[in-house]
């Protein structure tokens, strides 16, 4: 760690490009946004920084509050469902035979090799009223209806007179399916890593002491993999909260999340100061969550270190 003192030039050679990149394309734009958030539109194209707090005050407007509320509950619910789906997947991979593990992990990572835009368009095709998912539901409906008719209950129309396609697009359900689908790998990997590290004799000891499989899961496996769950929650929740493309395409303008409104301020709304304030607010929320997460991780690490 201290070697940069001894080899200062080599250190500079490696450090300068990345530092310059960070300053030019991250810190400077961020500073501009920060300044804009205290600004006012003077003309259509000119913004004057007047240190007004109006832009931040507008965050409390009912529409914006309800927008934040919608973004948060969509992300919380999607994160929770993601974790519930990811945990068994991670368990299967962690307990698979060693020769299978790389392949199973590959299957999890494989979607990353396709552009997000293309994957989301594929979801449009699946989730539409005439999409694949509704085709499947229609098929299930006709099977059920046929079965009821065969039982002589056909006249009661228990499943409705005819199949009504379920509307996913433009509904929160569709956006959530998209969010879960896209961010599931982010949830699987950290949980897998924590299960992989876990000494299996903890589970065996629990069984040996008379605990059932379920109790062993609840009282030993779950607490001991909480670090992985914690990480999984943060790294799925944060990008979900700021996601733009998925609600834009699958929400059809009906299920806006924060990023969609931010985008509108910079484009059609032409209200850069308010867009900046929204962006920074999202950034602050993210920072707070990250701080909480790393605090929890630090405590976990300290516990592990002390254990030797």
């Amino acid at each position, binding site marked *: 760690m201290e070697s940069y003192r001894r080899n200062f030039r080599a250190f500079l050679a490696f450090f300068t490009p990345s530092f310059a990149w960070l300053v030019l394309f991250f810190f400077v734009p961020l500073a501009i946004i920060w300044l804009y958030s205290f600004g006012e539109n003077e003309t259509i194209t000119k913004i004057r920084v007047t240190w007004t707090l109006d832009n931040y005050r507008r965050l409390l407007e009912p529409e914006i509050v309800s927008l934040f509320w919608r973004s948060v509950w969509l992300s919380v619910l999607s994160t929770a469902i993601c974790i519930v789906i990811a945990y068994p997947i991670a368990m299967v991979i962690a307990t698979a035979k060693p020769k299978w593990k790389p392949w199973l992990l590959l299957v999890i990572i494989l979607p990353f090799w396709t552009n997000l835009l293309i994957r989301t368009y594929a979801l449009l095709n699946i989730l539409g009223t005439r999409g694949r998912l509704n085709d499947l539901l229609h098929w299930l409906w006709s099977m059920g209806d046929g079965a009821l008719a065969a039982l002589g209950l056909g006249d009661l129309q228990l499943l409705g007179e005819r199949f009504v396609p379920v509307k996913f697009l433009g509904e929160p359900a569709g956006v959530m399916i998209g969010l879960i689908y896209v961010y599931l790998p982010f949830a699987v990997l950290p949980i897998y890593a924590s299960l992989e590290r876990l000494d299996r*004799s903890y589970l*065996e000891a629990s069984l040996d002491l008379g605990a059932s499989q379920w109790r062993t899961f609840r009282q030993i496996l779950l607490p001991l993999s909480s670090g992985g769950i914690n990480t999984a929650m943060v790294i799925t929740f944060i990008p979900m909260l700021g996601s733009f493309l998925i609600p834009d395409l699958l929400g059809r303008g009906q299920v806006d999340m924060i990023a969609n409104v931010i985008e509108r301020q910079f484009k059609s709304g032409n209200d850069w100061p308010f867009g900046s304030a929204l962006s920074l607010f999202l950034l602050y929320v993210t920072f707070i969550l990250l701080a909480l997460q790393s605090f929890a991780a630090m405590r976990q690490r300290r516990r592990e270190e002390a254990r030797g």
Partner: protein
Amino acid sequence: MSETAPPIISVQNVTKRFGSFTALENITLDIRPGEIFALLGPSGCGKSTLLRIIAGLETATEGHIMIDGQDMAGIPANKRPVNMVFQSYAVFPHMSVADNVAYGLKLERLPKPEIAAKVEEALAQVHLSDFAHRKPDQLSGGQRQRVALARALVKRPKVLLLDEPLSALDAKLRDAMRLELVKLQESVGVSFVIVTHDQSEALAMADRIAVLEAGRLRQLDTPAGLYKQPVDRFVADFIGSINMFAVIGQHDGATQAETTLETAELGRVRVSSARLPASGQGGLVLAVRPERVKLADAPPESADAIAVAGHLGDVAFQGNSSIAEILLAGGASLAALVSEKEADRLMQAESGSPVTAWWRADDMLILPENALSSGG
């Protein structure tokens, strides 16, 4: 310990295969109530697998495990009347010491005061009463092991299974824990089954030892029995140290009662035919423990002495005794345990000076390469 009481654990013809690999082959042995029983063998011999089969953490491919007369087939680990101390101790890191010990009791739905009393008693037994509210990360390795012991013993198992209980401790603590484990076993009275690769540990602690090698039971005996009467070369070599000479020729002796064995190092040795092993495979070896080897300037007159001339090599000081190395013709060497006084004398002597090593024929073992009759 009783030799006539029915066994507390009976391992019957247990075979375990992992794919094409046979980890255990047709193991049959009984563990008596109240004894310390050691499963001893080099790593990979299957001893831990056998322990895990008894605990119910692995299933035998063939054979049966009876615990207290009850067949354990189909009974999972959490329903078996045995408990285990794991090699890594597996003390739950997110629970306090007291909660760890109470874990198994809470599952029995005992009233809370009773659990608290039992936990307190178990912690007192392993001298951890003052540590009840600590977390495992605040304990030393030895203390964590005692938590694991208390956690298993508080369940009042019929047998306590210990997987390499001392291997994770440093040398000094290990010696102290040996004694402590034996004392603990005496006070609780249940049988201990200890898996170990350390023969000195098994000799010091166990009432009986099963020596396993490559998944097969080589010998089951008391420590003294294994040391004095090893059944074959492997056991003799594994338990304590021993000098061995391969037999390269076998001839009829002058009478029926006598056989002449030929070795490269000792030449021809006459032995009583009755002492030849009855069964086994591979060649024979002659073996003698270093403490039976005596040193002299000239061969002794005695008729039943076996003597070999050599030169004095290194003398390794071991405190109250020393090991003298005798270099034999042909590059072989022989170890002799010598007293402190004799070691002083040998150290004065010049290295390489001629010396005669000898021992009584009765002190020499005649062992087959492998006592098992079929290949393993």
